[in-house]
């Protein structure tokens, strides 16, 4: 029983996650790939889940609503939000696509190439504001003729203007070449009129690219290259306008300028342009509208240096006029109203409030009824159709605060966004501005955020503030999907209190082939035998750091004391020897760099961390392919260590509903897609999911820039070796033990006394006497 519950989250979430949403029969299922379990089984198992008692709440999913609805956090609410993606054809490469908006729908023209021209076809994918979806094989296309080569909106209607292109062979060079025409299709994809474009040259250098028809029937278009030769030089870029009768009214040269066509509030179409300087930096943006009567361009708005960067500098700028004096513009935060100087006057719709992973606006249309239709691209560059209407009444929403350090925000954001989209009755709010002391005070009082990233607070030392996550990982089959060694890092005294989503590995490398194994004693012997060194390892060059790094791996495995009997070894020749080595090689306070000093023989060893697979390539390049990664000395020989990024915890006073939210969120965070999104942030380390870890290794390529503190940055170029990375990583993972420290109080004692000794304020004998007294007292108090 427990087994099925766990499988539920690890498979179903990834399947449906990040696919956009909409009503269920609209066909989200067809996009599901991978080995998910069928829906029926899951419904059953989640019901059984309630039988496990209170703690099983973490294993229980929040109920999903029957049909999708948006929350009402903003002035506008989405009445429809659907992915606009073409059919996925196996092995297909290339093939253009273009989006367009109707007054009640969004469409996508996708040219499917197939293996040959006979198998090629044009798809018109459609989604409507009513939630209907359709994918049409364009019927006017007969075999290889009458293809569609472009599509554009016809403002205020559900008709579309498409581009036709026929190749005409001729002896006479002037008459041969490509012939272009526009053709308008109606709601049933029937051609209602055709407009020949005989004035365009046949060499492809002036082919309509973006197309939009205004409410008076004028066809606006920009031009670019579309032709039979794979040329890479700049095409001529024009903005042209054709009258409803098909006559060329005007033509303006915008070569080298980024152009978009945007529809205005009154049904006109304007040209949006963004010139760049010689270095490719955007210098301003403009919105201009041509008066068909005079053929003159009228400037509607212009933004440069003094305006918000989102209006002119960003590559994904998009704005239009909402009315004569109001701008409607999109940036990475959301959709806003602004005055004509670019100052925001009102937020319309904030992406983050609705789980939208916005990357770029494709098109916005202001509807006559005051609604807004738009198509945007998400993080994965997939299109989405969004239909917004003014918010009627604000519905109640359950807010759950998630406290995260600013650096970790983007690791969690995609999963939080997806959660907020799927569960509009709840809203996880990522809060990054916590003061650590205030946060602990709140939590101690049983208040504050429900979810906490313990990078802010510390984990084990505040165990009583966290709720045990029993039920979340109940059963045994999860071990097939997640890496047990990594998940166990979220345990305190054998009970799961925190969710670890990524981890790192730590080891030691030496510049010699021997030895290949060491315990504390042989480690010290080897240092002693090396006469050329000036320092022991990279990093902080202090006696304390030396002891803490090499001689202490928690209370149960160290060179200084026996926790069982409560005795210490400070007054011994072994400790005196370690102290002497520390004093000899770590006397100067300073910082020792990794890499070169060791390779030159000046440093005994290097400690390295593997938090991304590409770092293994960095170390391979630095230390050599057959370097001796001997590991740390420990009580029973060499050891490599595994450590987690700080676990996520749930406040111990969370309500049952909050527990369900937390459990559901954790499952999304640990789902395949949730983890894949997280890997895009540099603060996300090695995934705790086996399949995602594999992907991370496969993503190492010539662009990878392995970077870690203490090493110079490089780009790998051709010098990457995924097989080596995989071998190294899995081998070390198999051997790794959890990284352990002394309790903080004990460390403070050692730090204080060793510092006094290193500073020369106390003698070796006094140090040993004081350490023995203080540490044995501490151990006695604890046992």
């Amino acid at each position: 029983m427990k087994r099925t519950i766990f499988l539920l989250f690890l498979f179903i979430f990834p399947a449906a996650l990040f696919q956009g949403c909409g009503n269920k029969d609209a066909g989200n299922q067809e996009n599901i790939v991978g080995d998910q379990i069928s829906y029926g089984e899951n419904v059953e198992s989640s019901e059984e889940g309630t039988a496990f008692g209170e703690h099983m709440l973490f294993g229980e999913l929040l109920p999903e609503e029957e049909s999708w609805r948006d929350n009402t956090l903003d002035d506008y609410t989405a009445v429809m939000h659907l992915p606009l993606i073409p059919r996925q054809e196996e092995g297909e490469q290339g093939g253009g696509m273009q989006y367009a908006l109707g007054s009640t729908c969004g469409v996508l023209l996708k040219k499917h190439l197939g293996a040959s021209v006979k198998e090629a076809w044009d798809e018109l994918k459609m989604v409507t504001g009513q939630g209907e979806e359709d994918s049409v094989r364009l019927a006017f296309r007969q075999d290889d003729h009458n293809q569609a080569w472009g599509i554009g909106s016809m403002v205020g209607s559900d008709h579309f203007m498409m581009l036709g292109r026929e190749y005409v062979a001729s002896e006479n060079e002037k008459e041969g070449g490509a012939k272009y025409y526009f053709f308008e299709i109606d709601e049933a994809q029937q051609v209602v009129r055709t407009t020949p474009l005989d004035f365009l040259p046949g060499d492809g250098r002036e082919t309509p690219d973006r197309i939009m028809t205004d409410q008076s029937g004028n066809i606006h278009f920009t031009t670019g290259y579309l032709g039979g030769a794979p040329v890479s030089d700049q095409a001529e870029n024009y903005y042209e306008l054709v009258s409803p009768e098909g006559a060329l009214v005007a033509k303006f040269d915008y070569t080298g300028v980024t152009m978009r066509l945007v529809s205005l509030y009154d049904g006109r179409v304007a040209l949006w342009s963004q010139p760049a300087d010689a270095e490719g930096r955007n210098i301003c943006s403009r919105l201009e509208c041509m008066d068909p009567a005079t053929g003159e361009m009228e400037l509607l708005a212009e933004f440069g240096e003094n305006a918000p960067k989102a209006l002119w500098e960003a590559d994904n700028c998009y704005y239009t006029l909402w009315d004569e004096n109001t701008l409607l513009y999109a940036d990475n935060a959301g959709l806003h109203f602004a005055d004509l100087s670019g100052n925001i006057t009102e937020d319309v719709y904030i992406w983050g409030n609705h789980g939208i992973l916005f990357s770029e606006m494709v098109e916005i249309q202001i509807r006559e009824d005051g609604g807004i239709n738009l198509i945007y691209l998400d993080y994965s560059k997939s299109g989405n159709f969004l239909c917004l209407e003014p918010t009627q009444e604000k519905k109640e929403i359950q807010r759950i605060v998630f406290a995260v350090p600013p650096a970790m925000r983007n690791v969690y954001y995609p999963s939080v966004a997806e959660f907020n989209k799927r569960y509009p009755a709840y809203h996880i709010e990522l809060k990054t501005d916590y003061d650590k002391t205030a946060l602990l005070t709140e939590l101690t009082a049983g208040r504050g955020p429900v979810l906490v990233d313990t990078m802010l607070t510390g984990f084990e030392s505040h165990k009583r503030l966290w709720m045990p996550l029993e039920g979340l990982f109940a059963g045994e089959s999860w071990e097939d999907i997640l890496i047990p060694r990594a998940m166990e890092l979220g345990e305190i005294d054998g009970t799961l209190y925190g969710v670890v989503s990524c981890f790192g590995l730590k080891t030691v490398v030496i510049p010699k082939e021997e030895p290949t194994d060491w315990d504390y004693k042989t480690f010290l012997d080897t240092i002693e035998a090396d006469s050329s060194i000036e320092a022991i390892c990279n990093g902080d060059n202090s006696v304390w750091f030396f002891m803490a790094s090499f001689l202490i791996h928690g209370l149960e495995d160290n060179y200084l004391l026996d926790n069982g009997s409560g005795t210490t070894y400070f007054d011994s020749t072994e400790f005196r020897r370690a102290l002497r080595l520390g004093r000899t090689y770590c006397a100067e306070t300073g910082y020792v760099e990794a890499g070169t000093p060791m390779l030159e023989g000046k440093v005994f060893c290097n400690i390295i961390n593997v938090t991304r697979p590409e770092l293994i390539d960095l170390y391979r390049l630095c230390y050599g392919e057959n370097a001796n990664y001997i590991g740390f000395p420990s009580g029973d020989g060499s050891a490599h260590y595994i450590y987690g990024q700080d676990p996520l915890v749930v406040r111990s006073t969370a309500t049952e509903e909050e527990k369900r939210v937390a459990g559901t969120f954790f499952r999304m965070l640990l789902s395949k897609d949730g983890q894949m999104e997280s890997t895009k942030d540099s603060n996300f380390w090695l995934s705790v999911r086996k399949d995602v870890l594999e992907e991370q290794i496969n993503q190492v390529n010539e662009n990878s820039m392995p970077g870690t503190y203490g090493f110079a940055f490089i780009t790998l170029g051709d010098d990457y070796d995924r097989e080596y990375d995989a071998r190294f990583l899995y081998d070390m993972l198999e051997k790794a033990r959890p990284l352990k420290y002394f309790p903080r109080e004990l460390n403070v004692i050692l730090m204080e006394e060793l510092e006094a000794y290193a500073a020369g304020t106390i003698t070796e004998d006094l140090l040993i006497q004081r350490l023995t007294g203080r540490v044995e007292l501490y151990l006695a108090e604890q046992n």
Partner: protein
Amino acid sequence: MMKRIGALGFAVVLLIYSGFVSWAAVCGSSNSPDGAHDFSVCKRADAGYSVDKGTCVYIYGWDQNGNPIYKNDCRISDRYQWCNYICKYCNQVNDTQGAHPHYVKTVHSVNHN
């Protein structure tokens, strides 16, 4: 014998960081388990940069004779982001090592497969 350095370019950058630099070792935060700073966290700067990788020519469709028809309106650029290492316990920015770039993604300006 160990292969010391794999790439020439690497050797050059590696040498920049050789030697001993002075550094305040003790972390002020009580969260640090061993009292040392842990500079394992990247703090993103607002600044980043793009490297233009030129025009991307892609097959848009087949014409009626089965010949590929190309479009060249897509530009490829590599995006990078600057960041600094900070101590995950006390947020102190590490100043022995300056800002470093991260490769973020390769962007095609036009949506095509």
